[in-house]
């Protein structure tokens, strides 16, 4: 019988993200907290990547189901908006798993100026980071579309190997 918060966290942490199943919700940084009350009631806090992320309902159901497999049936899954999720919360092994499966993680390899200034008084120069192709490793890539197959991804293509790929955009 599982009782400690640490055990519970380890169980919940194995739930994969429904839209990026190569990473778990913990690796993606959307699992925020697991608590157990005196009566054994379990509360799990998750945070959405984007406000409209349609995977939240599936994630909630998956967490409840995973805990049920371990005999835990008194569960609340709560959604917390603050502090807002950022791609910085993707763990190093999560980033590695994404890259291994052909999805470029939000990167910080090379600074490139997009060559277009921001508007407004004293606005900072917009910088964008070169994205390394997850297939061949070339930094010679370009953005096809800022918006990709899910809210958290953009569509890129590699100039070196010509392959298109998804890129988890920095947020």
């Amino acid at each position, binding site marked *: 019988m599982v009782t400690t918060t640490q055990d519970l966290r380890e169980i919940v942490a194995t739930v994969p993200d429904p839209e990026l199943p190569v990473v778990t919700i913990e690796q993606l940084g959307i699992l925020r907290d697991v608590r157990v009350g005196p009566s054994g009631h379990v509360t799990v806090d998750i945070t*959405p990547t*984007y*406000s*409209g*992320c*349609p995977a939240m309902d599936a994630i909630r159901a998956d967490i409840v189901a995973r805990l049920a497999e371990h005999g835990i049936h008194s569960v609340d899954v709560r959604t917390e*908006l*603050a*502090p*807002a*999720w*950022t791609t910085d919360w993707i763990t190093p092994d999560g980033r590695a798993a994404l890259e291994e499966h052909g999805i470029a993680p939000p990167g910080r390899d090379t600074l490139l100026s997009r060559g*277009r200034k921001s*508007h*407004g*008084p004293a606005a900072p120069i917009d910088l964008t980071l070169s994205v390394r192709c997850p297939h061949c490793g070339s930094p010679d890539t370009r953005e*096809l*579309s*800022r*918006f*990709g*197959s899910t*809210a958290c991804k953009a*569509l890129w293509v590699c100039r070196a190997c010509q392959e298109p790929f998804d890129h988890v*955009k920095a*947020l």
Partner: protein
Amino acid sequence: MTTPRVAYALALGDDALVLAQRLGEWVARAPELEEDVALANIALDLLGQARTLLRYAGDLEGAGRDEDALAYWRDDRDFRNALLVELPNGDFAVTMARQLVFAAYQYELYDRLRASSDDTLAAVAGKAVKEVHYHRDHATQWVLRLGDGTDESRRRMVAGLATVWPYADELFQPDDATAALVADGVAVDPPTLREPWTSYVEGVLAEAGLELPEAAAPRSGGRRGLHTEHLGFLLAEMQHLHRSHPGATW
């Protein structure tokens, strides 16, 4: 009970909900596949913001209305969105003109609302401001491309801006409900957004080689429930399934 705070959350939520519905109409009709995806993604972000805001409005109201009740069971006179977001999509240039005007406004709004004394509004804004930054950039790129493109694309961009321009003013009008909240640090005073909005939009138009549209009589009324004839048709499409089959899920 419709307190000023309920009215404020409804206004913000209705802006997001109605624009999400409009942008959804582009899916499978956009000029290129990437734009189907982009506009659907932007609509989804807005829908997510609307869900949280309407749920919060319903909780505050305390009359047992959840986000679905507010989205599907109110008639047009009860919606508090600005007229801008209910305008028909027009051609792609009209939609991009509206996106630039609205995203630039919403960005400045959420950027300041992050400091709201209301924890829920601050949390929504903190989340949404990062999404809207992408929306604003998307619209900016298209206005530059169309404005600084061919004669035809430029002609359409000029016409698109002229279409939406009279509706921008409503976004910055003060209203009594909001005024009561501004003093408490809950709401952002709409007139304070005009200067940073103008600065951004004028910068984009200048870079696109476009002139500011000529001043036209401003149009308003949405915040008071006085809408254009277009909202009723939008709501009919959005609400009919839920009204025909209450509680339907899939």
